[in-house]
């Protein structure tokens, strides 16, 4: 990663921690609120940074390892930032029977990462999920908020290409604006 990217990430983290600190003040110091607090943090910032977990532990007056113990128990929580486009491939029963595993492999191969990882440019991340409730459309993948039913290996390439074209377009437009300024 280049220096600029790193600085930007540090800035982002600082802003995030600041925001979390403000949010925590709103919550009473109730041990029973641990999971909802973690959910709100992740809902807003998309992952639980180590420093954020420490802040939660301090706020609730419990040990960091207790917070970690709870957070790691549940599949919902993630500890690294996801990609800009979060790809979730369903491997529930119906999707498995209809070849969801092959869809997942195609995403992994195409993006050169494994499920649970994020691409180095932080554009994409892949996750496996169990049943998103559209079994009649199996196999299913979800990117961001959009559900893609009846997936086929050949559709994977097209989807990713679509995002890449979009990104190129955005980049070019940004350059254009910069040039005109």
């Amino acid at each position, binding site marked *: 990663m280049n220096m600029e990217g790193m600085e930007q990430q540090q800035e982002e983290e600082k802003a995030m921690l600041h925001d979390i600190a403000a949010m925590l003040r709103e919550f009473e110091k109730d*041990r*029973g*609120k*641990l*999971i*909802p607090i*973690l*959910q709100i943090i992740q809902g807003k910032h998309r992952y639980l940074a180590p420093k954020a977990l420490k802040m939660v532990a301090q706020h609730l007056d419990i040990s960091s390892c207790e917070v970690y*113990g*709870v957070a790691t*128990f*549940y*599949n*919902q*929580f993630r500890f690294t930032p996801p990609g800009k486009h979060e790809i979730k491939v369903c*491997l*529930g*029963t*119906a999707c*498995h*029977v*209809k*070849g969801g595993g*092959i869809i997942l*492999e*195609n995403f992994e*191969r*195409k993006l050169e990462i494994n499920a649970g990882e994020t691409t180095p440019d932080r554009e994409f991340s892949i996750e496996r*999920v*169990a*049943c*998103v*409730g*559209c*079994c*009649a*459309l*199996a196999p*299913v993948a979800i990117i961001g908020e959009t*559900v*893609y*039913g009846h997936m*086929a*290996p*050949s559709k*994977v*390439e097209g989807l990713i290409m679509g995002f890449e074209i979009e990104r190129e377009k955005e980049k070019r437009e940004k350059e254009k604006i910069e040039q005109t300024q």
Partner: protein
Amino acid sequence: MNKHNKKSAEDNYTILRHDVERRLTEFKNEDQAHIYIGMATCGLASGAMDVKTAFEEGLKEYGVNADIVPVGCVGHCYAEPLVIVAKPGFPPILYNEVTPGKAKLLTRAFLGGEDPLFEYMLGAMEENDMVPWVMEFPRFNHEKKVIMGQSGLIDPHDIKQYIEKGGYEALSKALGSEPEKNLSEVLESGLRGRGGAGFLTGRKWQFVHDADGENKTVICNADEGDPGAYMDRTILESNPHQVIEGMAIAAYTVGANRAIFYIRAEYPLAVKIITQAIEQAKELGLLGKGILGTDFDLEIDVFQGSGAFVCGEETALIQSIQGSRGMPQLRPPYPAQKGLWNQPTLINNVKTMASIPPIIMNGAEWYRKIGTDNSPGTAIFSVVGNIVHAGLVEIPTGVTLRSLIFDICGGIPEQKKFKAVQIGGPSGGCLPEEFLDTPIDFDSLTQAGAMMGSGGMVVMDENSCMVDVAKFFLDFTQKESCGKCTFCRIGTKHLLDILDRITRGEGREGDIDLLESLSMDIKNGSLCGLGKTAPNPVLTTIRYFRDEYEAHIKEKRCPAMMCRELIAYYIDLDKCARGCDACVGSCPTDAIFTTSNRKKGIDQTLCVKCGECVSACPPEYDAVRKVSPPNLAPIIERPKEDKND
């Protein structure tokens, strides 16, 4: 409860109902058409949003007046997006697989004109002499809707629509009676919990009712962890108030003033709809303080689960609400005595709660008449997999598996053969053809080796490998084991390793016996239902499909040709057309090359066995073959010069 409440709950309801009806008619123009669009998760995934936009544009474009009403899901997921058009002078008509193009056409020809476009419709929702009635089709007339009666027909965002259909009348009736009267009604109805185990609901209520405790809680279990079942979510998204009403009746009956919805985190739309529904019920005095003018108070909160299958188990669920890791606890004490924060707690599934209002309204006797004697009422299944009409089906218990799969859901696509049906999710079992005449109820399914469980039902055709299915479920339970019991934690891992070896062609003599004895140990050595039932998929597949295991182990062959390490694809050079390139572009790994006489070959070292080339090959050539074991594929060398480009 004090006596003067008795009349007032029902009187207050009547006033409320009139008020709602008045408000609805104020807005409703009887001469105007209504367009109901199914917009639950499955509808949205099939493009319901675009359809809605197309209708909106069409109405503007052709200058037609009509109301668009977003509704939930009727369960016919295979036919989504579904739209019902109700136009004065016509019966309400159901259209399937509506595209934006069809939406525009409908707006012009039917809403703007008089032509209901017969070619696009599934049927009419009411009997009439113009259009065939949907109830004449098996998919509709075998069903019996008690729980999902209003799903897909009313707007889940608007409590008034539920009330207009008689919603919350059951609550007013329950509040007008002594709790004990409601209790005996539920007991006599014979309702059994729809969360899986089928425990008598009335008995459970009795325990909580009788238990001592200041702060009793009612919990609705909407964790729905089975990776192939989605009816609970559909109910919450399509008709939230029926569940809320059931919870309120339960709370009044057992003496609780606090209730919690425990909803799975993966269901954001359900969380949103339920939260909104609770707010609306509060505004109308159907929740909160002094419900319907009585002195009964009830607050309902929503708690989001965080994605752990085991948290569907009631004691683990309680742990997780208390902010801990969701580890099941030893029972007794049962939650009915010592549950949330050590207070008596009633936990029921979504479907159980939703069954309560109809039972209170129509009486126990009415309910007992539906379905079988031992499991009265209806059951909801999500029938998916290799099936023509995939979706949610609500049937009276006692219908046979054959009738459900073949009559109601249209059988197996592409004229393939039925092989097995997996019922009950990770805790359930796989049943072969011989069991198709088993009636669907709690006891018959358990006897056959499966279970009602979550209501997940995956139909598998001849191309599904039973060892692979067992491996799939073990992979799931192994990951979801909370780790408390050694046998569950390590035993499932061993089972999975052995199954994995078998599907890779490395099975050994004696593996089947080992799987069986290990399974028994896991069943006996586990505390909660997860471990006790996790080996079921393995045991039933061994019991009914032993020959498949043996073929994998002894011949290194997968009879269903599904286990990828045990199969190979090759191109039949006699059939392959010279110069055709259809398969080349479909291959994600560029494994297909051109032979010296301009036909195609597959490079086995690159092939990932995804099967894309099979679908890409034009049917008139049909040249791609699949074989098991893989060494049956003829060796076709890539021409030397081809390698360099």
